[in-house]
């Protein structure tokens, strides 16, 4: 078995004494590539933050490999896009323990530009973060996380609000990083576009409903229990494709209206 990076045992987390997630048992090992799926408010962000250590559990515990280097890519909705920082400033920000002065050193600059280049953000280093497209904004924060050379990359909804092409680019990038040995855990709403391609999925709805490969986890029973809505699953080329259970019915009603 591969080395354990993070282990959550019987973990519960709360905001103002209301439990957001409860009784979570989850082990992240080196080489993992995990997707967390679940409806809005199911606790995906909370779980990722507990793994990062920015919130502490009220019950149970999280143990981490000592000195584990993690990179975090926040949900874009939570970023203050008006804050006066350029792309380069965001990327080098994480080196606050070594870099003290406002000046970006030559080495830092070279390293940062390499990361930006790799993410297709070459030439944008002096742009204000708001003057970018949604996909570019997303990748700036991936760049910041990578600049830190993480062993575990934590991404909160990395493909929300981006088009199909950008989503493919993000997927390819993550696959490349995974090949290079970076372990990844991410949350997503995109069952077919992202989750179904990952080796391991965790279905979350305050509690873990299921944990396994897409074929094991993406079943009508598990999905209904997770999302509280009827869903169908087709198998297409050996891969599960989730279809909205309400589709046919709604279409019939809509067409009757006109």
């Amino acid at each position, binding site marked *: 078995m591969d080395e354990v990076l993070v282990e959550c045992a019987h973990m519960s987390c709360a905001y*103002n004494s209301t439990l957001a997630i409860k009784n979570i048992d989850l082990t992240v090992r080196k080489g993992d590539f995990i997707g967390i799926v679940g409806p809005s408010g199911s606790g995906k962000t909370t779980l990722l*933050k507990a793994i*990062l*250590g*920015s919130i502490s559990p009220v019950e149970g515990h999280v143990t981490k490999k000592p000195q584990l280097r*993690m990179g*975090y890519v*926040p949900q874009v909705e939570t*970023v*203050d*896009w*008006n*804050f*006066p*920082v*350029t792309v380069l*400033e*965001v990327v*080098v*920000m*994480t*080196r*606050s*323990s070594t*870099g*003290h*002065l*406002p000046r970006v050193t030559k080495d830092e600059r070279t390293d940062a530009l390499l990361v930006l280049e790799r993410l297709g953000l070459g030439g944008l280093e002096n742009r*204000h973060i708001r003057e970018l497209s949604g996909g570019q904004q997303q990748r700036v924060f991936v760049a910041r996380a990578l600049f*830190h050379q993480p062993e575990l990359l934590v991404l909160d909804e990395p493909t929300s609000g981006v088009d199909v092409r950008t989503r493919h680019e993000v997927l390819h990038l993550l696959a490349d990083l995974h090949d290079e040995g970076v372990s990844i855990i991410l949350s997503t709403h995109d069952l077919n576009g992202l989750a179904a391609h990952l080796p391991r999925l965790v279905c979350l709805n305050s509690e873990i409903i299921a944990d396994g490969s897409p074929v094991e986890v993406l079943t009508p029973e598990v999905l209904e229990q997770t999302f509280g809505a009827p869903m169908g699953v087709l198998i297409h080329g050996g891969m599960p494709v989730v279809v909205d259970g309400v589709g046919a019915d709604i279409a019939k009603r809509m067409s009757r209206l006109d």
Partner: protein
Amino acid sequence: MSFVFAGLLTPFRYEFFNNGIIVATIAGALCGLLGVFVVLRGMSYIGHGLSHAVFGGAAASAVMNVNYFVGAGVWGVASGVIIGRIARRRLIGADAAIGVVTTASFALGLALLNRYGQAKKSIEAVLFGSVLGVQTIDIVAVSAVAILSVIVVVALYRAFLFATFDPEVAQVSGVRVAWIEALLMGLLSLTILVTMRVIGTLLISALLVIPASVARMLTNSFARMLWISPVIGAVSAFTGMYLSYFLDTSASATIILTGTLMFIVVYAATGLRGRTRISGLHHI
């Protein structure tokens, strides 16, 4: 011609004016520097609250015959750190709690001055500031706090930037966010303490907000804001103080009005760009 020139220089013939304009200019720069953090973190209510809390300490130390800097200093730094703590936890009603505590401190100070203070005049001086009472110790104090603030902000630049932009990720990346925040609150309290005698309780929070907002309209870079804002603060303080001599108006009010005028000019000149840049600032 030389007559007009000599006329323009008259105020500088008075020592009290020279002391006052030195303190005011340094105070403007200092408030401009720390105001960057106040504005970007949307905590202008903290500047307001702190100045009211320090007023209580100032009044108490006057009544008890304790040195102003010692009495108000201890009181101010203590309330600064406590306010920072309350605000950080983001509890429901944190704003209200801060408001109640600092207003109570203010009211207590007022009552103490009414009951035991000398005259109405001293109350007015604390509320609106006064150039007349400025002493060498004020120049020393404001310079010391300014130098300290510059050293701290430059030496811990990245940590300050990270903790301001993204406290949660900063925390997990090894920045001691709580410590940085306490440091910032401490510096803010000290700033209010050393500038209050000139600017007055009621107008300090404006001096913390206006230069930084003007700087924000002028640039998209945090690093540049950190020097533009102090320059604007210093220029408005110097100009306002100078004009107040001729207009025979309150120095602090004239300083704030000068700053406001700069705000309006920059707002108009930068147009839509400036407006979108400050649209994201909370509570200015």
